[in-house]
């Protein structure tokens, strides 16, 4: 109980954020907005890690560092994803995920 806020509150916020991200991933057609949905999902997970660390194991820093590394991975992922998106844009002149389906059967 830190400052009168239970762990559950953080978890609720993170869960909602996660599924909003899932919703965005499933509905958005634009590749960049899909990428943004993924960032939302990543952030909700980060919040979970940090909250667990602070509330349940305050004597260690594992969740903290995990979050740190996730941020680093997210950064590199975003960089590569955007490179791919730009390449796709060059090839198809749009970034609509439904039109980029060359890799079927």
């Amino acid at each position, binding site marked *: 109980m830190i400052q009168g806020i239970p762990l559950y509150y953080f978890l609720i916020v993170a869960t909602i954020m996660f599924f909003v991200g*899932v919703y965005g*991933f*499933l*509905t958005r057609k634009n590749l960049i907005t899909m990428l943004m949905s993924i960032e939302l999902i990543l952030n909700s997970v980060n919040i979970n890690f940090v909250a667990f660390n602070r509330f349940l194991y305050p004597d260690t820093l594992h969740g903290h560092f995990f979050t740190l590394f996730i941020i680093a991975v997210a950064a590199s992922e975003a960089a590569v994803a955007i490179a791919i998106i730009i390449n796709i844009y060059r090839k198809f002149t749009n970034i609509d*995920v*439904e039109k980029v389906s*060359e*890799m*079927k*059967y």
Partner: protein
Amino acid sequence: METNCFNYTYLIILIPFISFVILGLFGDYLKHKISGWLGTFSLFLVFILSYYTAYQYFFNVGKVEGVYQKFVGFNFVWLRFTESLHIDIGGLLDPISVMMLVVISTVSFMVHLYSIGYMHGERGFERYFSFLSLFSFSMLGLVLATNIFQMYIFWELVGVSSYLLIGFYYQRPSAVAASKKAFIVTRFADLGFLVGILILSITTGTFDYVTLTDPNGTAITQGSGIVFLGLSTLILVFMGGAGKSAMMPFHIWLPDAMEGPTPVSALIHAATMVVAGVYMVARLFPIFAISGTPGLEVVAYIGGITSLFAAIVACTQFDIKRVLAYSTLSQIGYMMLALGVSGYGGHEGLGFMASMFHLFTHAMFKALLFLGAGAIIHAVHSNYMYDMGGLRKYLPITHITFLIACLTIAGIPPLSGFFSKDEILVAAFHHNKFLFAVEYITAGLTAFYMFRLYYNVFWGKNVHYHHTPHEAPVTMTIPLIFLAIGSVFTGFIPFNKLVTSDGLPFEAHIEWGIAIPSILVGILGIIIATVLYKKETAIPDKIIGSIKIFHKWAYNKFYFDELYLFITQKIIFKRISEPVAWFDRHVVDGLQNWFAWLANTVSFNIRGFQSGQLQQYGWVFVSGALILVIIFSFYWYSINF
């Protein structure tokens, strides 16, 4: 049994093998003449070595305390299964193998020499000589075998070289068919041989001939305990021998094998390979004789029936080589019969001795007959006797030697055939009167068909030839003369002192009570043939007309080929193979095809899942994950609350 002064005998096998390798690999680069003479020279070396070995064996060192011993000239272990069961390659010298060495090297050398003339200018001259060398190698290895498995190996090698040589004129479909037939029939018989070898080795625990045929050894005493197994084993082993020696009912391949070049017929299908079966039975003779099974009876009856049957067929054939082929069948039948009516040891072993004796003399005169026939064919370019006649003027040497051979086979004294045939008849008389009678009839028939052949070729009508037949070259006539001399004088070799069933010499006399009637029967056959065929007359046709059906049957070889075709094609192929093939094609293959079709169809139908639509994948992923969460939560609840 000791290793001794015979350890050079490995050369006897090695030399033809080297010759085969050289001719086979480098034959194309050698001149015709050189390759021919190379093969002949290697066989000449073998010839010298064999005669030296025979001399040494029979007159110097072979006898220990009056008994001919078995010597192992050389031996090395090739494949070891257990301490006692191993396959060796070696050279065993005892009276029969030494005698066979002499036969093979003599005939093979003569045939090599003859072939230089006969095959002159043929395509594949080097190939021919390399095959001949291969054959000589395998045959010598066969007779020198120290154990039954080595014999089997060389047995198959002999079969292969026979196949290669029968099919030498591979452009001719009939030659190809004949070689296939020979190979398949003998191979089928060898199946029995192999099974027999395996059973024999299981029951006795050894392959080695010396242990196997020791009259007091465990092999025989144990084998006699299991009568049924012993009998089946011996019959199976004999089946291999019958296949190789063309005994009934495996005789069908031998007449067709005459498609090969004539010297090959002389070497393989008259003198050496076809007597391998006889040799094999002789080799295992103690087992046959002592084990107390009726194996020998089977051998005797098959030999007797084959000899009579073949003699009848031979009277009706027109192809001179086929006449000789049936004559060979008949004579090998004699040998088998002689083995079959023999006992073991002493005078009881008369049949064994007679068989070996006849093998020896037969090799000489039958090779001579074939080589003579080769000379005739060489001169006339036809195999059929109605294309021939009056050849005595053109081919004097061939004529004389051929006449000698015919007289020999007819059993006219003092030629060699008389002595050996007489011993067989005596042995048969003392053992089985029925077979004795069969042999009498056969002897008369033999004289008849041989002189039918002789008169038809050398006398009879005067045929107008397109180009005048000429005598064969000297490389062909020398073997003829040599073999003719052999045919005349080999009868005086005292086989009863040299080659006996137990190594002990015994006394044998010509029983004139049996010999004189056999001579008379022979002369009767000759006289009938003279009357019928010396001048061209209408009598033969009349006789044929009066026994039309019988003649037709005999002319068609009693429809044995047709019977085989009926059994194989109508029964085995149609009733068994075709349903099996149908089953294989439709059920076994069908099942596989069905699986392939199923996989194909299913994957074709489900490939839509791989749509390339990222969000579809996302859907599947999310719903799957949710389902897993639900499952795990329920699970978690169920174990916690």
